């Protein structure tokens, strides 16, 4: 089932001579449950693509559909609620709220919705992430890997349909990196979520179902390893 779809997606910064085209006519379709890795050099436009898919940035032209919803036709408020309920974002620098504990950071999207918290599900999540004994710690009392796990927890807490990760392991050592990717893989499989991950790490990319290579704002290669594997 198709969950993410873009039509002629363009994004440019600046005007006139200083105009930079970050994305050029991206047409992309991603199915539910897929694990997609986006690779490319710095400045190739892969982060921009991710932000546009997550409803964080605004495209210059073109459309993004998530779950059949035309994301950029929504109002500012609807868009915020859409992000809250449908998209989980994981940043390279974790971006936790420093004044909130690990648990509160993870629950933030639910709190914003004033939703009742499903305690069992949350406990399960916190166990998977291995943060049970760290739940009442503030971010500055946690290690990098722990902080990133909190941010994964936050991304997954609302059980979003797509999870976007922007170089989630870029700041971590290889041991922590492996753990994080394993966690991501386990959780998206468990909750049948779609995972789109930006990475420089070929090890991570190689674990994906599909690798999209971007260069100068265009998709230059779109390899579907699942189907290739089937072919082989």
């Amino acid at each position, binding site marked *: 089932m198709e969950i993410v779809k873009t039509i002629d997606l363009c994004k440019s910064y600046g005007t006139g001579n200083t105009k930079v085209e970050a994305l050029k006519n991206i047409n992309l379709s991603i199915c539910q449950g897929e694990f997609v890795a986006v690779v490319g050099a710095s400045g190739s436009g892969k982060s921009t693509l991710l932000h546009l898919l997550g409803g*964080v940035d605004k495209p210059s032209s073109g459309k993004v559909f998530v779950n059949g919803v035309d994301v950029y036709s929504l109002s500012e408020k609807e868009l915020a609620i859409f992000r809250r309920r449908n998209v989980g974002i994981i940043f390279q620098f974790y971006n936790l709220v420093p004044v909130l504990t690990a648990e509160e950071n993870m629950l933030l999207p639910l709190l914003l919705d004033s939703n009742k918290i499903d305690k069992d599900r949350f406990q399960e999540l916190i166990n998977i992430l291995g943060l049970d004994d760290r739940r009442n710690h503030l971010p500055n009392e946690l290690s990098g890997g722990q902080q990133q796990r909190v941010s994964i927890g936050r991304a997954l807490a609302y059980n979003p349909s797509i999870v976007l990760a922007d170089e989630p392991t870029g700041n971590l050592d290889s041991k922590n990196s492996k753990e994080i990717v394993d966690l991501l893989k386990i959780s998206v499989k468990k909750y049948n979520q779609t995972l789109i991950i930006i990475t420089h790490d070929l090890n991570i990319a190689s674990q994906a179902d599909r690798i999209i290579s971007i260069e100068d704002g265009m998709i230059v290669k779109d390899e579907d390893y699942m189907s290739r594997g089937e072919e082989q």
Partner: protein
Amino acid sequence: MKNRRSMANYKQITYRYLKGQRNRTLLTILGIILSVAMVSAIGTIIASTREALVKDAIRQNGSYHAGFTNISSETLEKIVNHVEVKESGASLYRGYGIVREATEEEKEMYGRNFSHRYLNIVSFEEKALDMLPYKIKEGRFPNTSDEIAIEYWMANYFENKVNLGDTIKLAIGQSILDDKGHEVKFDERGEKEYTVVGFTNPGYVWKGELITTGITGIDEEYFSEVGASIENKTISEEKTISKGKNGDYSVYIQLHNIKNANDKINAIANDVGLDSGNIKYNNQVLRLSAESLNDTFNSTIIALLLFFIVLIVVSTVAVIYNSFNISVLERVSQFGLLRSVGATPSQIIGIVLKEAFILSVIAIPIGLFSGVLAMKIVFYIISLLKFEAGFIRDMEISISLPVFLFSAAIGLITVFLSAIGPARKAGKVSPLEAVRNTGSLKKESFHKIKKSLFTFLIRKVLGVEGEIAFKNLRRNRKRFIITVFSMVISITLFITFASFSDFMFKANIIDNSNKGDYAIMMKDPEVTDKIYDEIRGVNDVKRVYKIRQMNGEMLIDDNKISKKIKEMAPNAFSTKKDNFVVVHNSNFMIIGDENFEVLKDSLITGSGNKEDLDKENGILVVNNTYVNNEKTNQYSLIEGYHLKQGDEIMFLPYDNEHSAEDENKKYNKLKVMGVLEKGVLNRGYNPDGSVIMITTEKVFNEISGLSHEENEKNNNDDDGNNGGKSDSSTSVNRTRIYTELYIEMEENYDDKDIKAYFEEKMRF
């Protein structure tokens, strides 16, 4: 240790932010406290002043709103039962009771010819006494019509000195007066025995007063009995003194609601068929308790206070806005993060506004009470100074609910105004900020600084450090402007408050200390002159002013009257006489010849030489005057006249004995020998848009006719029948001229000698 309470709602993030930024939070709270404290201090002082004025007015005039006098018992009953009336207390006039015969000296002092010292005996209901300003000095108020309370100093005037518990027997009746108020005869109607149960303390004691109040009680059954019967009139004619006749009743009332009191009182009078002659309004109290702020304080002070409040609000906004703005800028990436995980713009605005609200909730109550506390301290300090004005002396700084609500509202508005801008800014933060900034680094718009002569000069004068500092300041223009603005505002605040307090000091303290430490008011010129001479010799007396004043009309050239005063009060100068303009209400006065030296400081032109004035019928004039603007009804001090040294003025004192069109009235020619900036004591300026003329005792006595009378008196003493021959048409009835002595004491004076002098001379 790590037992943090978990959040139930996203808004609690606010608390965490506040805790996280403790210093900024404290600064903001302090800002709010200061502003609320200032507003509540101003409000408290206004409320307390009003309260003190009302209290003072009630103490002097009683708490009743209106009295209906000389009414019948039926009318009394109607008034008591009227819907508008909340409280009422009745009184019944019983007649005059003879204390003893008046001496010739006393009669002359009183000014009206009465054969006896009388007690004006009135029965009061307890409720009436509560509403009237009578005060008990010793004993109690009477309960029955057999008991009486008299003014304490009257006790000495009875044949035998009266003590509490004594029984006095009084001849009671009516004093029949002629149309000038002199007694023709005393119509005795009976005798009555009273037990003296109390001594009252009157507002002032003047031993020349021949008629003082005797308060008696009312017997309970008495009113109902009389209330039903009309024949009382005939009974009272039959020399029955125990029952009142119609028209001898009075009733004092309080209304349910003091709003529009005058209309309601008139309506009551109308309903019971009384005309305005029967109504006695307690004007002071009515005016003070019902009027709006605008009437108590003149519009200038109101405008000034409003200006202060605006200033306070603006400066607080500047400070708190800065604090919020910085805190929002610091947290741009965090707000971006919240946005990226799904917070709507209004949720972000809510977080910032809630921060502001929490700060307000903490700071406003503290501010309210510190304002009151500050005022208490200020008034404690003022109480250490010598303060004359009565209402300031018994001013109590009290907590006033309206003031608190008003200040709290002002505080909330201030904080809201400061926070709404930064909150909106936070709401507009794009979710992308979460990725764009990785934490602490905040983005601001920077301007490139062009090289100019100015930057060159900065570098030359302040060196490289100065240049970098300057560039830093210039880089963010908005913040630079805000910083400069805060500084300007705080300097303005300081200057305004400093000059305001300076103004208050000048306006109040100095003015009040100018009334001297003791004041005596007397009628007999010779006696006053004697006392004046004597008091100046008493130990620790620094200066005695002898103020004797006549008011009158003067004739001056039209061009001596300033354009401004003619604009403000055109009707005042409409009468003309022989090409001169008639100016009313001019004050012609002496200050005591020994005091001319104090005028030197305020002399603008001319000389204050006493001998010159004596020689040429000379006067010193004050051209500045208070004028009431006929259009705006505003009272202001202006230069009203252009009188100069050498000008001549025609002056005619007012005189009741002669009618205005009397052919005999003769103007006195006076010569201006000098111009003063202001007069002395509390008579600095003429209060009625006219001129003050200060002269010597010799000139004054001649103009007023006092010296003629003295001569006459001497002549009479010489050969016994030379009276009435005087042709002095300007002679003023001497009983109309009062003399006031204002006694100024040395600093840290000992009041023993002066008090002894008073005791001896005045027999208080």
